[in-house]
Structure formats: C-alpha cells, structure tokens
C-alpha cells in the first residue's frame, strides 16, 4: 500500500524512498538514496556502524531534521505534508538520556505526558502503567540522577511510552549499559511488540536482540546493504553463521563484493 494522505489506513508503519540527506558542513551525504519499509507490527532492527546514518534516519522520521531529498512516510502520512498529524502516534527513545535528571521518573513521565495533552487521572494512570511496565515502581520517586545506568535507560524508555504511541523509534537505547539491563529493556520491548506496537530499533549490539527482530536492515555510509527477516538473510548469506557475522561481513573487513551481491528483496530497494 502506498502513502495515505490522511494517515488513517496504513500497512507500512514506515516507508522511505531514495532518501538523501546532506548536512551543511558534511563532506559526504549522511544518507545516500536509502529506501526501506517497516510493516505495521514489526520489531525492526536497523543495524549499522557508528556514523552509518541510523540516527539521521530516525531524526528525519521523527521530524527533527528536514531539508532532505526523496520521500518518507510514517503511519501512512507523508512527512513532506507536515509532521503534526504524526506527533501523537510516535514515540522516541533517544540515544542519550533525554530526561531531566533533577526530576524523578514519575515527574519526567508526567511532564512528557502533559506535552501530549494527557491530564488528571488519565495521566496518573498512564504514568503508573509505564512505571509498572518498566519495573520502576519502587524507584519512581527517586531523582533520575540517583538511579543506576540501567534504571535510567528504563526511565528513558518509559518516557516514550506514556502517550501510548503506535510506532516507537529506539535509537541505540541500550548503549553503555550492562547485559542484565539490556535484557530488561529488550523484554519490555518484546512485550510491547506483542501488544501490537511497531518498533524501529537501531543498534550495533546485536547478540541479545537478534532473536526478537522480525525484520532487519543493515546500512553503512548512508546506504542499505541488506534488508529482510533473519531466516531470509540466513538463506541469502549461507556462509554467515549469524547476524553478527553477516554484519561484519557486510560492513567490516570482508570482501563486500562476494557477499553483498544477492539482494534479499531486490524489488524493494534491497541491497545496494
């Protein structure tokens, strides 16, 4: 299904075509004709090295960056037509801890919920539900600055959920935390995905998450290298034992020409 101007009926949560982004002082484009689709209800892994263009793509899809070439649609709405219809339908978990550290998780959630016009009992219930979902109930009234790194990341996630978004963008949400905290976050996300939320998860740690991804895209230097479900990628790259090896093969020191040739979804802007 193509782009729906009203955004009321959509199959693809995210649809990006030939996206090119130049930064004013950049020596090369951050995105070079990137095309991909994320279906409604996907747990989509966007993998790439540092500087591959993951954060740029998420920033465009969340309305934080404009002035790009190509087209992008979120929840069926073309971003070129304006971002306002989409705002309440998406949530973002930024790479850094985008919370007020002098406030408690409860106060942070109440603030972000208030921005989405939630108020009174509804807001209180949503805040409590998000705290429960992220296992932060016991530390809900402790200042964020006094929480452990893992709990801060959970609070960062909870703040994106308070308005019940349909599509959640997660820009390296597990960066810099230990394996237990990463597991806690992934489990919360898996639960949200089971409830129908579409997730776009960018990372370059793929060990713990690869089993949860319904689809994966690997990008490097702003271009798509591979795109498909894990079984599809395994079938396309039989010499790679797992996703991590495929990732290194496509983005690292291996000979790309050997492995990148078979496009997983050639007809959908697959491998570059």
């Amino acid at each position, binding site marked *: 299904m193509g782009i729906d101007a009203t955004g009321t009926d959509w199959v693809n949560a995210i649809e990006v075509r030939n996206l090119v982004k130049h930064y004013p002082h950049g020596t090369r484009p951050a995105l070079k004709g990137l095309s991909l689709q994320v279906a409604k209800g996907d747990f989509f892994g966007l993998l790439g090295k540092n500087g591959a263009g993951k954060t740029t793509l998420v920033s465009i899809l969340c*309305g934080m960056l404009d002035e790009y070439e190509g087209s992008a649609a979120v929840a069926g709405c073309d971003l070129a037509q304006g971002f306002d219809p989409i705002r309440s339908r998406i949530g973002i978990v930024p790479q850094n801890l*985008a919370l007020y550290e002098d406030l408690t998780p409860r106060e942070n959630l109440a*603030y*972000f919920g208030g921005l989405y016009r939630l108020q009174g009992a509804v807001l209180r219930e949503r805040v409590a539900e998000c705290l429960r979902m992220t296992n932060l109930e016991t530390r809900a009234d402790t200042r964020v600055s006094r929480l452990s790194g893992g709990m801060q990341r959970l609070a960062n996630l909870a703040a994106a959920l308070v308005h019940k978004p349909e599509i959640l963008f997660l820009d390296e949400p597990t960066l810099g935390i230990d394996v237990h905290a990463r597991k806690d976050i992934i489990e919360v996300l898996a639960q949200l995905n089971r409830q129908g939320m579409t997730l776009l998860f960018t990372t370059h740690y793929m060990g713990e998450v690869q089993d949860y991804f319904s689809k994966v895209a690997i990008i490097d230097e702003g271009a798509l290298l591979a795109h498909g479900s894990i079984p599809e990628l395994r079938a396309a790259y039989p010499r790679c034992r797992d996703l991590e090896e495929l990732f290194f093969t496509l983005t690292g020191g291996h000979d790309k020409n050997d492995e990148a040739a078979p496009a997983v979804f050639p007809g959908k802007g697959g491998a570059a």
Partner: protein
Amino acid sequence: MKHSPATQPLSAIVTKDLLCLCRDKAGLTVLFIMPLALLLVMALVQNAVISSGPRSVRSELLVVDRDGGALAAEIVGSVASNGYYTVRREIGGGIPTSELARSAVLHGDIHACLIIPRGFSEAVSRHSMKRDMAADASGDPGESTPETTSVSDPVPPLEIILDPTLPGALREGYLNVLSRLVLLHEVRATFLAMGVELPAGAGDAGRYGGLDIRIEDGTFSGRKGTDMPTVTQQNVPAWTMFAMFFIVVPLATQMIRERNDGTLRRSLVAPVGYVSLVTGKILVYGMVCVAQFILLCAAGMTVLPWFGLASLTLGAHPGAIVPVVVAAALAACGFGVLIGTVARSHVQASSFGAVVVIILAAIGGVMVPVYVMPHYLREFSVISPLSWGLNAFLDVFMRGGSLADVLPETCGLLGFFVFTFTGAIFHRKRCGR
C-alpha cells in the same frame, strides 16, 4: 488541577521548570542570595562614602598639642565638634611625640596628624596685635603690612601630615577647617582691638552671608517625592534590576542543557512548539523576577534599617511599580531566551550572558549613578534596558511618579522583550538551534 487540553502542555512545562529550578540550589543562590548580599554590601559601602549624614565618614586626626594655649584648645575643640573628624590625643596608650605621630601617619595607623607648635597661640595673638597697630598707623584698619609682620615676628607653622591615601575631599576639608579657624581667630582679635565683640556663632559654617538659599527636590508635577534621597532608595531598585537581568545566566544555561541532553528534541517531537516551550520558561523565570523584586524591597524595608540605613519607601504611587516590574521581568527573560537560543555552549552562555549584563548594569547606573559617569559614557546609558527600568523605579520611589510618568520606560522594556523574543524565535527557525 484540571486544565483545558490547549493549556495542558503549558501547565506541564511550567511545572517541570519550577521543579527543576527549585532543585537547583546553586541557581537559587545566584537568583536570590547573591542580589541580597550585593544590595546589603553595596548599600553599606555607598552609605559610608556618599551619605550626607554628619557621622557617615569619619577621619581620625591625631593632635600633638605642644602649645597648650587658648587658640590651640579652640582649634582642637572646633575640629572635634566637626562631624567628619575624630580627634585623638594618644596613640599606643601614651601622648605621642611629633616623630611618633608622623610615623603613625606614614604607617597608615591614622589618617592625619596635626602638630601645634610650642608658642603658637601667643605668636598668633602677637601677630594680630602688631598687624592692627600697623593698620592704625597707616589709617586703614583693613590694610596690613605683611612685610613687617611676617619677617619681624613669624608665627610658627601648624603642621598637618596627611595619609596619601586620604580621599581628596577629606584632605581639602582638613585644610579648610584649620585655615577658617585661624582666620576667624584673627578677625575676632582685630574686632576686639577695635573695641567690638563679635556675637557668638558669627563666622560659623552653615551661614551663607545673609543670603536666603532655599533647597527643593525636583519631583513630577510638583508632587512630593520622598523625604530624602537615601542610599536605600538608590540601591534597592538598582540591584533589583541587576538581579532580574542576571536571570539571563541560569535561564540561558538551562536552555542549553536541554538542547545538549536531548530533552529539547524529545519535547519537540510532542505536539508542542518551541514558542510554547520558551513561553513556559518565561512564565517561571518571570515569576522569579517578581519574587526577587519583592525580596529586595522587603530587605530594603526591614533588613537595611538593622544596619543603620534608611528604610525603603515606595513613593506616592506604589501601584505604578507593578507594570514596571512585569515589563522588566519580561525584558530580562526575553534577553535570557535570546542568549539561550543563540549561544552554542554552556560556557558561552554563562560567560557572555554575565559579562553583557554586568556591562549593561555598569553603563545603566546600577553600580554608580549615571551622573557621576564621564560625559561620553552617559550617552551610552540610554541603550541599557537596566537604565530604563532603574529610571522608572526611581521615578516612582523618589520623584513621586505615577503610572503615566513611567509609561515610556515600561514601553521601552516591553519593546526590548518583543525584540529579543522575536529574535530568538527567528534564529531558532533559521538555524534550527
């Protein structure tokens, strides 16, 4: 509390900014304790320097009276009765020699030393009588012959040793007081020789040769101002304006912190605009400005009198100050928002903001009144919004100004707010920062 859906984001922003501010102890210190301390210290210092009260500035004068005569006693008594000088006779528990007194001044232990030489009173009397006799011989009582008096019977000189650091006014004061006393004595002696006794008090300070000089305050439309222009009346509005504008630093640094930690970008993904986010900040920090004004006025009324300073009075039309406070608060917050939007880093915002506010305060008459500045600096004072606010405060507090009288300054401050706020929004749209 329930808000309409439209105002709910603003309510959330205001609540968040209030909580962040209340938990920032360093920020609260800068916003409330610092201006209070500045007001107290500067008012006390200025009171000591510029107050017209008789005992505000006292200089210690060590007298070494080697004469012990009537004129010496009269000089010492007159100096002691002058409000600006404290006479000391002893140093280190004993009566000093001339050399010890000189050494005490040189070491900065005492401001000045007066050495009255032996035989001074008698020599002055003899000198006066001889001059009168010479005048009688020439037939003109007003004409003396200096050659004969000074050469034949010289009066030993009074020695005054002054600390080089003594302010010029006090230095001149010593010389004026002493020369006036000696002159007065000579006039009296001359009249006595003529058989006329001067009435008590003749020639004392405070008389203006019989002229009737009337002193009047300049006030709006002849309305009565405050009783006296005091240090409190000058300093409370001055440091209130400074404190209000110093809000630029915490406001701008908070904005940059939000930009750097990603909370601004996250907030902007929600259905609120940059204008709403900034408006919430202006409401919170504007309330802080009003609180600063109330705090400093309360300090002017209650705390400063504890230190011997005059109490603050709000003038004949205290209600006229309300629009000035609101306009000044908006102007300060607008400036903070502009700095917070334009500056690239925390350090840039705090250092640039602080320096600009201090410069605007200095040329705006906060630290010293504009009228004591050099002429070319006075021209610059009109560009400082702190000067507009300060003038409006002084119009109400000291010149009996009403709402109409402070309207130009109020409009100027509001114009400054519109200019800075619009500049910030325009810059944000143009640069996305």
